[in-house]
């Protein structure tokens, strides 16, 4: 039914207008549901049959599809020779913009042939379709949980007490209830916003806050067991949190997450992973400073093991020292790996980004900031840090791949009005003579009147005349000033809520924030309903979307162009006489990013570069038929060499293989005529 009109990128760019694929007769004026995002991928697949393939990797408990679009020259092949980039969007299900960005990217990749000629793209526009559907449901409520029922309050019923749209405005907002034990108060200078009362400032709370709803099951709690489920966004194995309401029973407990993990682990060609959501590693590198289970430079060896490996249980050792101790004990030829020893000693997992990786994160972050500045998109609130158990952390720590999380919008920062301390205060005025006051001049007095909150018709000249005539003096003025109500403080409260309120007033005609309005609640009596509208803080109005994506999504290409790329920089054959040759090969990473990341070295997941000799008629005296170059930093070159014997002239191919950084080979001649 739907008419599709694809427009080439040239037209698109020159028009300066992004027209949504799949709905070509409509401008970009809405967000797409998870189902619609899948349909768009299907249409891409239909229109680009040769270079795309659609994978349905899972069905959610809410029976929604999890779709991945593969784009690339090897899309028909199971075994890939070229590296791939994986893009996952909206894993938490609460960032609709991320899904649009993923589809936008897919569109760009299809249009930009040079971006897909030597790599594969896997694009997942919605990793948590059940959660993501909440944006399109009535009433509007941000729910990151999938459709799996879960008994949050561990009573006799499941999902029996969720939110309710009591005032019928289609939005789940906040209820505030006067309560003697209330911890909240409204902000005096901005009564629409609430803050926690700070006793140390002499404040007293008067409200309790609840999400809009009632006690549906009569157990004395409101909204304590709503529908769902697991937040797919925190259902991944790095620092997964057990025994919580919404993280899932274990990492990968859900079809959506398990099949995604499986897909990525089985596609060993994936070289980098982007996560579109609300976290931004391009702006703020992954968080450091977490306390690890064991400090690897000061390991204490448990007594029962210490005796076994000839170590002193009262001393601390570095990991390298322990490796040496253990290596001495095992029979020759038996290899002791770091992971064996770490497992034996129970050292646990890496929890902070490794320093070598932070180097590229920091450098790229500087470049990204410049990029945003150019686009005038740098004036924004900070993005949140990655959650424990998140997809983007798993990518870095467990896949050992560069993990680039990107978001595309946060609320603009509120411009703090500069508070100039008034030149004249009541105290100063009290000590001032009338003459001194008049001597201040009209301009300064006018400023003083304004800062003191005097009525506008109370002009400086008038005051001067009054003082001159004796109808007013500095003492009386000081007294009056002291009695004036002080300007009310806007301090406290959530800066994000403040930013939302400002944005709502300025850009949304106030629709991002519901004014508090009285309501008669069945359980709580007289209450007020109001506050922030769900999604208003992370989902820009549709009129902004096209421009945001157009200016920011191409950063992905900047980063993809920095992937490690391995090649044979140089080969050299030296004849050592009598049919003996030295063969040398220099392997280079001509990309910017390291192969693999430091974490990829540590977690052993990324194979070394394999340099192998292919051909017949030679024997190896030194070196191996399949040698390994364990790692190459950006731009680094390492040499591999062999001593070979070839009786007759032969041709020999040196092949350089990686699964994520391309391949290269060169044929050399041994003993042939030069």
């Amino acid at each position, binding site marked *: 039914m739907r008419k599709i009109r694809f427009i080439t990128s040239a037209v698109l760019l020159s028009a300066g207008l992004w027209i949504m694929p799949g709905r070509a007769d409509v401008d970009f004026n809405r967000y797409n549901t998870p189902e619609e995002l899948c349909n768009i991928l299907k249409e891409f697949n239909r229109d680009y049959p040769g270079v795309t393939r659609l994978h349905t990797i899972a069905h959610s408990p809410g029976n929604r599809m999890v779709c991945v679009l593969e784009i690339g020259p090897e899309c028909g092949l199971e075994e890939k020779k070229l590296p791939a980039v994986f893009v996952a969007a909206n894993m938490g299900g609460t960032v609709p913009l991320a899904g649009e960005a993923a589809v936008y990217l897919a569109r760009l990749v299809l249009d930009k042939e040079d971006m897909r000629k030597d790599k594969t793209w896997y694009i997942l526009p919605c990793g948590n379709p059940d959660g993501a559907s909440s944006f399109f449901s009535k009433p509007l409520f941000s729910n990151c949980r999938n459709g799996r029922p879960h008994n949050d309050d561990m009573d006799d019923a499941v999902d029996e007490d969720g939110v309710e749209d009591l005032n019928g405005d289609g939005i789940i907002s906040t209820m505030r209830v006067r309560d003697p034990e209330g911890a909240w108060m409204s902000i005096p200078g901005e009564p629409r916003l609430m803050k926690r009362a700070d006793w140390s400032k002499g404040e007293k709370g008067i409200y309790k806050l609840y999400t809009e709803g009632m006690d549906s099951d009569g157990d004395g709690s409101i909204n304590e067991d709503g529908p769902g489920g697991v937040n797919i966004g925190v259902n991944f194995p790095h620092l997964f949190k057990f025994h919580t309401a919404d993280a899932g029973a274990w*990492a990968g407990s859900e079809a959506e997450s398990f099949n995604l993990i499986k897909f990525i682990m089985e596609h060993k060609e994936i070289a980098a992973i982007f996560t579109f959501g609300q976290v931004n590693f391009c702006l703020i590198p992954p968080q450091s400073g977490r306390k690890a289970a064991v400090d690897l430079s000061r390991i204490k060896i448990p007594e029962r093991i210490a005796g076994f490996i000839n170590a002193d249980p009262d001393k601390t050792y570095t990991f390298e020292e322990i490796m040496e101790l253990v290596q001495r004990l095992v029979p020759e030829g038996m*290899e002791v790996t770091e992971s064996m020893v*770490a497992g034996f000693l129970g050292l646990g*997992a890496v929890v902070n980004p490794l320093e070598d990786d932070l180097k590229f994160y920091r450098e790229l972050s500087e470049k990204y900031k410049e990029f945003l500045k150019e686009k005038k998109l740098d004036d924004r609130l900070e993005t949140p840090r990655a959650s424990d158990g998140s997809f983007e952390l798993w990518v870095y720590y467990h896949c050992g791949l560069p993990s680039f999380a990107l978001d595309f919008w946060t609320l603009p920062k509120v411009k703090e009005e500069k508070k100039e301390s008034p030149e004249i205060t009541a105290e100063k005025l009290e000590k001032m003579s009338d003459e001194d006051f008049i001597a201040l001049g009209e301009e300064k007095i006018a400023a003083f009147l304004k800062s003191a909150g005097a009525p506008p018709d109370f002009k400086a000249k008038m005051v001067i005349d009054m003082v001159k005539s004796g109808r007013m003096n500095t003492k009386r003025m000081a007294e009056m000033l002291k009695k004036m109500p002080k300007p009310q403080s806007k301090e406290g409260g959530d800066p994000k809520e403040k930013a939302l309120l400002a944005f709502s007033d300025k850009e949304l005609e106030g629709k991002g924030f519901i004014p508090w309005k009285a309501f008669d609640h069945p359980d709580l009596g007289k209450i007020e309903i109001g506050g922030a509208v769900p999604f208003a803080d992370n989902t820009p109005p549709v009129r902004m979307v096209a421009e945001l994506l157009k200016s920011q999504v191409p950063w992905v290409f900047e980063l993809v162009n920095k992937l490690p790329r391995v090649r044979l920089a140089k080969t050299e054959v030296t004849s050592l006489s009598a049919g003996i040759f030295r063969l040398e090969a220099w392997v280079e990473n001509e990309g910017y990013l390291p192969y693999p990341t430091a974490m990829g070295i540590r*977690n052993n997941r990324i*194979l070394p570069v394999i340099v192998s000799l292919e051909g017949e008629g030679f024997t190896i005296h030194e070196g191996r038929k*399949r040698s*390994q170059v364990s790692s190459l930093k950006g731009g680094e070159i390492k040499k591999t060499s062999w001593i070979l014997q070839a009786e007759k002239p032969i041709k020999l191919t040196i092949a350089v293989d990686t699964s994520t950084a391309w391949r290269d080979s060169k044929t050399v001649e041994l003993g042939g005529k030069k």
Partner: protein
Amino acid sequence: MKRQIKTLLLLVTAGFLFVGPVHSKERINIPLSFDHYYTYDMVGEALKALHEAYPEKTQLDLIGKSEEGRAIYGLTISNPETGPALKKPGIYVDGNVHGNEIQAAEVCLYLADYLLGRYGKNPEVTQLVDKKTFYVVPIVNVDGRYHFFADPNTPSSNRSLRRPHDDDRDGLVDEDFPDDLDGDGNICQMRKRDPFGNFKTNPEDERLLVRVKPGEKGEWTILGNEGIDNDGDGLINEDAEGYVDGNRNWGFDWAPEYVQSGAGDYPFSGVGIKAIAKYIIDRPNICMAWDFHNSGGMYLRGPSNKTQNEFPRGDVEVYDYLGRQSERITPGYRYLIAWKDLYSTYGDVDGFIVQLRGAYFFCGELFVSASESFKSREEEKRAKPESGDDMSAYMGMGGRQLERLQFSDNLTQGELYKPWKPFKHPQYGDIEIGGWVKMSSRLPAPFMLKDLVHRNASAVIFSAKQTPEVSLEVFEVKKIGKDLYRVRTRLSNTKAMPSMSYLAQKVKLYPKDMLTLQGKNVEVVAGGRLTNIYFNKVEYKKYKPELQFTFVPGFGKVEHQFLVSGKNEVTICYVSRFAGELKKTVALKEGSSF
């Protein structure tokens, strides 16, 4: 390719040489016999035979398939006439998670055979089968068991799930297995005469080697397991099957490969492991679980690593009670805490069952090397007590080697140890092959098997007997106003295990047991836990007093009091995951008896 042909040849011969008197074509008779080991196929046949012999007491489920497509079976033993299986305390028993640890499956088979065979003959067994449900999964790593029998192996090789893994990181997968050079079905040791070697012939027995002391002349170099350099990389046997460990691949507290070898790429990457996890989840009545391995003679409880908290005191008491009793049932076995007394593990079945299913769990490490004894009483007295030699025993380095060799010579007529024989090795030249055979070191000789399986099945049975048995009584109905009654109930548990583990309560794993009071035209005015019967102290529940969340401690009771307004009668129901369901109806009148 060469390896595969060899494997085929072995398949034909293995049955005759190493399995014992019964082989797969032979019909399996009930009762089962435990003077031999069952191959993978035979275990399946045995389960089918048990099910056919006792169709009304058993159910045979296909839990799932392995990486190589072999069936994983689970046998349910329960008496449907005394209630549905899921409403009785469940005891889950599995084994052979590691492919080489085969006697674990025999423990499972024996337990099933014993419970079913003694039903109706022994009142204790009859009661157990009537009151409990047993879930028996003899082989977790079905591919592993298959290959352990079919392929040449050492006693310790072939643990892994059959998930390809590039151990030596050369881009090739599982390309350099050990090789059965002499074609005897075993992977033994290789040694080479070498005046600069670290070993010399043991003067007490020329088959054994001892390390040379400084200044002594060497005689031998040990070259490791039988094999050649299959892939021409200068290393021997460096990339055999896997390694993905079926006991490191579970969902709770899983840690990646670099933290612990054998983890697999992600939790539940093993297809069979995932299927078994689902089987367990689908049986929420499982309150006791056993997972059998070899070796060392240990009954291990969690926690699995030190980052996990020690179990709540109440649970430790249950473990101590069961663990100490198991030590008595099986002499030489020790009750230990896994991470503290052995080593840390992540993603093991223990964590999954205890922390995510709320059951109690023991890992049984079967077989103690000391049982291979060859000593008179006098010699026994003179001998120094051995300690911790089991690990080194199967590595072939232990101090008990001589005695074990004498055991082999005199009690198995030499079947456990292969004498050294010359061999022309493609890389090492003239070498000798010999040493402990596959079916040695970690496995009891067939004549000792029955004792091992019976004692360990008895440890399981003791724990099964201690699963909760709760009874409900209404011990008071007292009129306290017009149409107002005080109803007091008591739930008592005659067994050691509480009706919900303390850990499960602590982490709020699932809803607690529910006690409800209902009746026609009856209102529950108040209800709560009666904490002091003499002073009428009650912790009343503010909302929904007719529904109480509770649990019954081991060897203990819990009492509740309800203030009920109405006439006629009330029904009190108790529903527990572990302790089943109970119901009592009483009339609302003074002194009503029950």
